[in-house]
């Protein structure tokens, strides 16, 4: 485990990171293209004497995670788009109950069954909450097998720190891809809050209650909503993750996350123009301040969905005189270097 370089598949690496980060409960349900993760957990959770459950549905899996998290465990589930839709009920309850957990979405094309190719079409669902009620998740969008490893570990810490569900928003390509990465040991942050709220039996303390029902509007539910919002505002201040390449004095900055951001990196290297990349890593909270501070006049959003992240880019730049263009390829298509070069040419004419 000491900084060893290995060749591994994305979905397996998430499992390895979760085990290393002390994941204490996993429940899942088969769906392509994330099955390797559930299969990995089926083997390695059991080998590590930790509970693994293959649930009867994604609905049940997320509610098992609710229970495990309420019981104080580091809990995780994973799925892909149609299954994540089913999990939305449970995610809303988990968010409402201030419970931490990690949810992996290896996004595939939609709507409906769509296909099993990688896509980014669940961006709205992930970053806007997805289920019912006023709530947010922390959403992280890694772009390599190494980052899947690193950010899966970080997800457990963020979930525990803020008592919030954290979603790893990957795409099918990222989960299926084999790539070299450096494995490293997990170091638990020292300042994580103790789970004094967890259901462990009330020995030596007053009973704990985990709930989301606040019947009266004026002194209960609104108060609860506002308290949740204080947390969301705190996260917005403390967690805006991003990567930039060549943005200093760039004529044009491309905004892209996940798999397609790697295509954009190639474009930047091969272009004769001064092109920069702004890559959001936290998709919620969106790194709006850093993007706004770039002072560039021309932005190009490249995404594997029909214009979803572009809305956050426009919101971040609202009130500036920057222009925002878009390359949007849905249905499991990855924008090519050629079409991005072509668009750049048009924009810098």
């Amino acid at each position, binding site marked *: 485990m000491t900084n060893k370089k290995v060749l591994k598949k994305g979905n397996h690496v998430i499992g390895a990171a979760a085990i290393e980060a002390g994941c204490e409960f996993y429940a899942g349900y088969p769906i392509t293209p994330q099955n390797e993760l559930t299969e990995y957990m089926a083997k390695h959770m059991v080998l590590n004497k930790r509970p693994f459950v293959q649930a009867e549905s994604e609905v*049940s899996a997320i509610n098992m995670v*609710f229970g495990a998290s309420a019981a104080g465990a580091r*809990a995780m589930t994973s799925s892909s788009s149609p299954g994540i839709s089913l999990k939305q009920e449970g995610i809303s309850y988990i968010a409402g109950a201030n419970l931490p957990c990690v949810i992996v979405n290896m996004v595939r094309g939609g709507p409906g069954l769509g296909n099993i190719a990688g896509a980014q079409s669940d961006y709205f669902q992930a970053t806007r909450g997805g289920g019912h009620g006023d709530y947010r998740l922390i959403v992280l969008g890694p772009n390599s097998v190494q980052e899947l490893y690193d950010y899966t570990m970080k997800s457990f810490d963020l979930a525990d720190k803020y008592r919030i569900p954290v979603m790893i928003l990957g795409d099918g390509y990222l989960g299926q891809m084999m790539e070299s990465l450096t494995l490293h040991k997990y170091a638990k942050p020292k300042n994580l809050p103790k789970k004094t709220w967890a*259901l*462990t*039996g*009330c020995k030596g303390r007053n009973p704990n209650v985990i709930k989301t029902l606040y019947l009266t509007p004026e002194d209960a539910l609104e108060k609860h909503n506002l308290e949740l919002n204080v947390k969301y505002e705190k996260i917005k201040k403390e967690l805006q993750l991003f990567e930039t390449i060549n943005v200093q004095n760039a004529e044009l900055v491309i905004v892209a996350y996940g798999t397609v951001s790697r295509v954009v990196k190639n474009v930047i290297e091969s272009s004769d123009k001064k092109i920069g990349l702004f890559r959001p890593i936290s998709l919620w909270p969106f790194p709006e301040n850093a993007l706004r501070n770039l002072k560039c006049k021309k932005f190009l959003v490249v995404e594997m969905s029909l214009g979803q992240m572009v809305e956050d880019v426009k919101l971040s730049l609202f009130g500036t005189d920057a222009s925002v263009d878009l390359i949007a390829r849905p249905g499991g298509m990855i924008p090519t270097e050629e079409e991005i070069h072509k668009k750049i040419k048009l924009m810098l004419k």
Partner: protein
Amino acid sequence: MKLYQRPKSLKNVHTHFCPGCGHGIIHKLICEVVDELKIREKMIAIAPVGCGVFGYNYWDFDVSEAAHGRTPAVATGIKRVHPDKIVLSYQGDGDLAAIGTAEIIHAANRGENITVIFVNNAIYGMTGGQMAPTTLMGQKSTTTPFGREKNLGYPIKVCELLAQLEGTTYLERTSVNSPLNVMKTRKAIKKAFELQITNKGFSLIEVLSMCPTNWKKDAIESCNFVKEQMMKIFPLGVIKDTTKTK
């Protein structure tokens, strides 16, 4: 000599239950058994969506809510994390036998070492008296204003259904419509908890209960309805007991 007192595990507060409702009796029985078995500090209960949702206002032990019907899934997560704690899934008929059918069948089939108290009053109480999966044929509700007809399905016999699954250990149907049946229900609940304590697996006690408000009957008529109508369709007794062979 003190003949009767409030169980220690039952908080000294008024409940929100309607007069003549069976939930209060069942809550009390659970707490009596919890006291007797000295498991209050090991209890983790899950309150369902429905009239039972406020369990945490009455039970003096750890409680979680759950989404409608998902109580057995939440119970699974808790029990797998804390196998040494006593996990109670408290559910009504709409919660368990309609929206939560998948969850209860699969928790039972996995043989989760939990105790389910299933309160069957043949109606949705909290939402105002709609047809439940256990509503009797011909029984009127706000969504069966002319009585339940065949095309709305038949009353689901949960114990008999779950008895088919190898994962289930103990299934009994009782009632709280008479003092004798209350005593039998107490005995059944105690047995179910004892089975969990000794790691014998999944047990479910189905308790036929009264809902005078939504049945539009008085308390005595309601007790009689359980005896004369419900017990014909939902016969009382031990439906399955594998503890002698397991």
